Each structure stands twice: as structure tokens, then as C-alpha cells.
């Protein structure tokens, strides 16, 4: 700023901000989280590629639970209400969030959708994100935990290729393990090795929504999380040979 003659020349003024770029989203997410916690609802952000089996997992979860927990969901998709229809048919009250061109859910989309729902009646509420291993990773929605659904057919190198998604997740559900025998060269050990290279404390479960293998362990995790007793230790199960 010109101090000497007061000529009024444009002058520079530095303003310290030191704020997260996503501060606006974080603020709404904190609001969502406070509501979920106050209502005693376990909110889980379910992420994964298109076709990884997120919706099939929720359908199978409802079957496996057999009414032990009340479920609810919102599901994000660019178009159609298909996931919402499937979830409702599986007995999970749910609403679709059509994002049009947006590649992820954000806290405001979730907040506005919750306003039209009876979400407080759920024990566990799933935020089924848009199928995408990139963008959803950085948007807090107010969830208690991030879960990544990765199907064995996507290949064991996906954690290495999408490290941000896996670094930020609390649990990986490795799905479609019934297909492993049909995938030459693809092994469970290769997935586990990849998890360890992007997650310092990998927690994962292998399961099949089709055959039901691994589903009891997943339900145990849900019940423990709901009771606030989920282990922070590495969580692994071996597949029956």
C-alpha cells in the first residue's frame, strides 16, 4: 500500500484464510452427523465402482439380518430410480438422489433428501454413493464410517490405482468372491497385499451377496458398530476352502 504520497494506487492486501476448500461441505456434514448421532442412527457411506455390488450387498444384508436391525438408505445415481426400487423391494425404506451430472453425493444433497424421509426410524442408514472410485472419497456426508465395496472382478490393482478412496475407508468389503475360481491368476492374497500398500491398518471382509459366504461376519460388524463396539484392530476372515 502506498504510504508516502497517498496517490491511491492499487495496493496489495494479503488475507490469511487457512480454511479447508471443502469447509462448506464439512459444515453441513457435521450437521448431518450431529442429527444421526442424536437419533442413535448408524450412518454408513457406501462407496465403490459402478457394478461393484453395492445394491446387491444391501439386498443381501436385509435378508441376512432378518429384521434384527431396521435399515434405511438413500442411493445416489446420475439417472433412474432403479437402486431405490430394488432397495424398497428388499424391505429397505429408501429414496434415490438423482445427481444428474454430478459424480458424487455431497452433504447438502444428503441433508435435503433426509428432510423428506423418516430416517430416524432406522438403526443403520446407508448412504449409497454414486458408483465411482474417485470423487466420493473426499466428500464427508456425516457418516460414522466409510465402506468401500470392491468386487473381485475389478482386479486386485484397484486399491493401488485409487489410493485416496482406500486410504479414507474404514472397511473394505471384497464382494463376488464366489467368482474367484473363475478368475485365473486372481487371488485373495493379492487383494490383501494391495490393501496393505494403501491402508496402514487395513480392515476388510470377503463375502458373496449371492452365496451368502461372509455375510454373517458383515452382519456381526454392523451389530458391533451399532453397539459402538467395533474393533479397531485389523479385521479379516478366511474363506472356507
Amino acid at each position, binding site marked *: 500500500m502506498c*504510504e508516502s504520497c497517498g496517490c491511491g494506487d492499487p495496493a496489495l*492486501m494479503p488475507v*490469511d*484464510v487457512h480454511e479447508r*476448500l471443502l469447509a462448506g461441505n464439512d459444515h453441513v456434514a457435521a450437521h448431518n452427523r450431529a442429527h444421526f448421532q442424536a437419533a442413535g442412527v448408524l450412518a454408513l457411506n457406501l462407496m465403490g465402482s459402478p457394478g461393484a455390488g453395492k445394491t446387491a450387498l444391501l439386498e443381501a444384508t436385509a435378508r441376512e439380518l432378518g429384521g434384527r436391525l431396521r435399515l434405511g438408505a438413500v442411493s445416489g445415481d446420475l439417472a433412474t430410480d432403479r437402486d431405490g426400487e430394488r432397495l424398497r423391494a428388499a424391505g429397505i425404506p429408501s429414496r434415490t438422489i438423482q445427481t444428474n451430472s454430478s459424480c458424487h453425493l455431497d452433504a447438502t444433497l444428503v441433508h435435503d433428501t433426509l428432510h423428506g424421509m423418516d430416517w430416524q426410524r432406522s438403526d443403520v442408514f446407508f448412504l449409497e454413493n454414486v458408483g465411482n472410485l474417485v470423487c466420493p472419497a*473426499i466428500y464427508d456426508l456425516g457418516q460414522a464410517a466409510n465402506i468401500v465395496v470392491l468386487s473381485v472382478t475389478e482386479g486386485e490393482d484397484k486399491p493401488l490405482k485409487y*489410493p485416496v478412496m482406500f486410504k479414507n475407508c474404514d472397511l473394505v468389503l471384497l464382494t463376488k468372491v464366489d467368482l474367484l475360481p473363475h478368475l485365473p491368476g486372481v487371488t485373495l492374497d493379492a487383494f490383501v497385499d494391495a490393501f496393505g500398500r494403501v491402508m496402514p491398518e487395513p480392515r476388510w471382509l470377503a463375502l458373496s451377496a449371492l452365496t451368502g459366504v461372509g455375510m454373517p461376519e458383515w452382519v456381526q460388524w454392523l451389530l458391533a458398530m451399532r453397539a459402538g463396539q467395533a474393533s479397531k484392530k485389523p479385521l479379516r476372515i478366511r474363506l472356507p476352502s
Partner: protein
Amino acid sequence: MHELSLAQGVVRRTVVAAQEAKAKAVRRIFLRIGELAGVDGRQLTSAFEVVRGGTICDGAVLDIEFVAASWSCPTCAVAIESGAPLRCPTCGIAAQLAKDADALSILRIELEVDGV
């Protein structure tokens, strides 16, 4: 392409700062982006150049500080080699990510104001 909505966020935040300071223009916006922030700096810059049009940010430059991802042992501080398992080869405990390796922040904004 979440960079577009992030660029809009940069513009919104900067407009607020500029209004508060009664600035005439915005010269430069300093960001810090970590390698594991999940955001591409070049895409963010391209998006910013689109969305700044018609706002006080028109003509402003994004100055992005990049922070590389590195992991090390929180106990013995040994560095984990890139691509290696994230566990200390000596202590066996979980590695720790370097500070700001997942940062996604606006640090500072340089505004042009009327001289006194």
C-alpha cells in the same frame, strides 16, 4: 470432475474475502493440495479459469503448493519406500502419512485495494 465444484468454492470464498476488504480486484489465491487430497491441481486450475469469469476473481491467479505423499514410522521415523506396505519394516507398526499430504486448503488471498 469434482474440480469444477471445488473451483466454484474457491471463487465463493474469495468473493466473501474481497467484499469484506472492499477490494477492487483479486491478484492471487494461494492453495495447498496434498498428493492424497484426491484433487488434481491442473484440472482445478482449468476449472477455476472457467468459473472466475464475471466475478471479482477474473484475472486472478491460482498459486498451488503441492505436497507429495510420504509415509514413515511414527516411532523410529524410518521412511516407507514408495509402493511398499504401509508398515514399519523394523517396528512392525502402522505407518503415518506426512502432514498435509492430504491437505486441501485455501491458505491466503492477495487482494488489490485502494491505496490510502
